[in-house]
């Protein structure tokens, strides 16, 4: 097997595990829009990197957009965390504003870059639509590390995380440091989104975070089963998408992954409709 294919399969499986676990919390906490906001903030980060590259040409390297995407997504996540604790602006409104502003800034920067360099900036298509053709060993290692980090945090802090997710106020009254748990979940979510953006693109990455958890909560009401089903759904989606792409090379893999998961969701929905 080609190394790049092995990297791709392993990286996608790692993403399946990390996104499958977090998907349960994204769905139960109704954080789908938060994930959407963080993923689109990535484009704002890339836009900032392209502007920096224009002003300081020596910094115009492939690493710069990645660094800015990570920083922007983390800032977005912490900003969402801050706003959702206050009462002056609703979380949905705040996310909607930052999401649209990030997209606008990304497009704006891309056009300015194109005007001055007569070429599209590095990573524009990747950040938007993702790519699964050439995944590096470095990316595989990062994906595996994030999967281990997510699984480890949830295993070690499961009682605090569950308490927070069930009722944040009651968790605080019980002595849980809810701000710590809230921000930890947002940071884990950000890391997953950033790593998944590379293969899925900022538009489709939300599917990784929403569909597995939704299917799992339809099928079971027990946390252990919900976690297992969510991860399994995520892995089936990845495997199915990659299988379709390997059979019909002209089809893009990321949309294939999403469509396989959609089929699983429809099956789950109708098979549990009579309960």
């Amino acid at each position, binding site marked *: 097997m080609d190394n790049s294919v092995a990297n791709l399969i392993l990286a996608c499986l790692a993403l399946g595990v990390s996104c499958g676990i977090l998907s349960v919390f994204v769905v*139960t906490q109704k954080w789908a829009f938060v994930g959407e906001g963080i993923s689109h903030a990535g484009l704002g980060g890339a836009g900032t990197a392209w502007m920096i590259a224009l002003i300081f040409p020596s910094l115009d390297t492939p690493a710069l957009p990645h660094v800015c995407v990570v920083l922007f997504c983390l800032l977005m996540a912490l900003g969402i965390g801050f706003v959702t604790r206050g009462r002056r602006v609703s979380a949905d409104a705040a996310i909607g504003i930052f999401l649209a502003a990030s997209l606008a800034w990304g497009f704006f920067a891309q056009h300015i870059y194109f005007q001055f360099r007569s070429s599209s900036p590095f990573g524009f298509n990747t950040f938007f639509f993702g790519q699964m053709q050439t995944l590096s060993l470095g990316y595989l290692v990062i994906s595996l590390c994030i999967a281990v980090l997510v699984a480890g945090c949830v295993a070690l802090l499961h009682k605090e995380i569950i308490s927070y997710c*069930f*009722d944040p*106020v009651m968790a605080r009254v019980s*002595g849980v440091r809810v701000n710590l748990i809230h921000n930890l979940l947002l940071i884990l979510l950000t890391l997953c989104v950033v790593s998944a953006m590379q293969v899925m693109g900022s538009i489709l990455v939300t599917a990784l975070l929403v569909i597995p958890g939704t299917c799992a*909560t339809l099928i079971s009401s027990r946390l252990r089963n919900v976690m297992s089903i969510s991860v399994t759904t995520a892995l089936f989606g990845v495997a199915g998408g990659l299988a379709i792409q390997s059979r019909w090379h002209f089809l893009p893999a990321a949309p294939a992954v999403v469509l396989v998961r959609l089929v699983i969701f429809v099956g789950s929905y109708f098979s549990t409709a009579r309960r």
Partner: protein
Amino acid sequence: MQADAGNIPSNARSGKGKTYDSRCAGQLHYNTQLLNDPIIDISHLDFAYRDQPVLKDIDLAVPRGSTVGLIGPNGGGKTTLLQLLLGLLVPTRGEVRVDGLSPRDATRRGNLVGYLPQRDPMQPTFPIDVRQLVRLGLVGKTRIFHAANREDLDFVERLIDRVGLSDAASTPVKELSGGQLQRAMIARALAPKPKVLLLDEPTTGIDRAGQQRFIELIDSLKKEMELTIVFVSHDLRAVTSVSDRIACLNVTLHYHDVPEHIPAELVYRMFACDLEAIGIRSGAHSEPVQLQISSRKGGD
């Protein structure tokens, strides 16, 4: 000394002094002894949302092992006072101590304060069962990265049995009825063996028979666990059924005494808005209100 609603000596109102209404003289020795070391001690407390005062100059000492009923009209500040006791809000002025600690430190200890909120859990469809829900009560008591010890887990099982949910211990929370969920939440609040239990409108939305069962459950758990209870409600009947002492709150604390002796005039004044909203007008109030109070311990 005859204490009436409008002219109560400040020390009597706060419950900290030795001078009480002569009608409760029989309780004086008991109260003075216990009040030397109250488990909840609130002094000169003010709280305001922006410029809107919600609580003004509250003094309240709750003796260990007592059950204090906190009554008052909607919007009178009862839930706000509970939130201050829980450290969820910070006083504008004054001090709150729970077992000698600030409310935030008290809740962080994880085994000092139990709380039953008025509302349902924020995510009642979260995929956990009754046993997992009750075990969540141990989360603050158990250190981070550590599992709960066997003794605490055994106590959780006994609590589940005690609140009558042993058959439903593996039932997902989202499949529970309102009454079952409330009992599970009580067990959750008691799981860390707290010294203080705060109940916020626990009988709202429950029928009379359910209220009576709830009151009996709370009464027996209080004795078994030597709890101090603060019972917040605007339901006079429920409060007087379970409380040793009553505090009437409507922005300021109007009265703090044994339940039999609440002046009807005061009760009418406290609940005037609520009563008028349901068609009861001034002058026709004394008797019906007095009747509700006299139903203490009597049930239906």
